[in-house]
């Protein structure tokens, strides 16, 4: 059983649309990270959120950490084909507790 559940598992949208990906857990984490993975590559860190309620922006990507530090969301504005990939959230500890992943396809 994985500690972090992501939804949706798959998402296919047209270029220019907005989307939100969710990462939920029943456990509290001191910090949470978001990674993006492209085909044939390992995941690469996008952001780390630490404080409950924290919002971080990375160009068109907005990350939010829930007040109770159990959940997080990733919102992409005006999606582009270059955003296509697998998005993974990960909770912190001695190890990384990875979520189930959201596979995003942005159609030109």
């Amino acid at each position, binding site marked *: 059983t994985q500690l972090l559940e992501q939804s949706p598992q798959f998402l296919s949208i047209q270029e220019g649309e907005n989307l939100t990906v969710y990462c939920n857990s029943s456990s509290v984490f001191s910090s949470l990270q978001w990674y993006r993975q492209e085909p044939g590559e390992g995941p690469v860190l996008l952001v780390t959120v630490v404080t409950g309620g924290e919002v971080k922006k990375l160009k068109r990507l907005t990350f939010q950490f829930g007040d109770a530090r159990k959940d997080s969301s990733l919102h992409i504005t005006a999606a582009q084909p270059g955003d296509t990939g697998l998005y993974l959230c990960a909770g*912190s*500890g001695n190890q990384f507790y990875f979520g189930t992943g959201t596979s995003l396809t942005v159609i030109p």
Partner: protein
Amino acid sequence: DAGITQSPRHKVTETGTPVTLRCHQTENHRYMYWYRQDPGHGLRLIHYSYGVKDTDKGEVSDGYSVSRSKTEDFLLTLESATSSQTSVYFCAISESGGYTEAFFGQGTRLTVV
């Protein structure tokens, strides 16, 4: 890019044979991890190491063993490969466990026939 090298990158092996995957880092990071990635499961931790000769099990450790005799090398061994171990295996490193960024290798695609 973080200096992490996985070898081999691709391998096909027969059921029942032992297989060893190697992860080599040049970053001198304390923590090293082995994950497997399967559709619908994200990344699942197999084993990790928090120092030379210091290792611990992850959530899917059955059928796998690891060794870390040097800071830079972390070996994953499938003692007797089974078809259920067909997967993509990723090595990762971090300075201070899950509180710092994880850097990943490019993965090893293993097929057990």
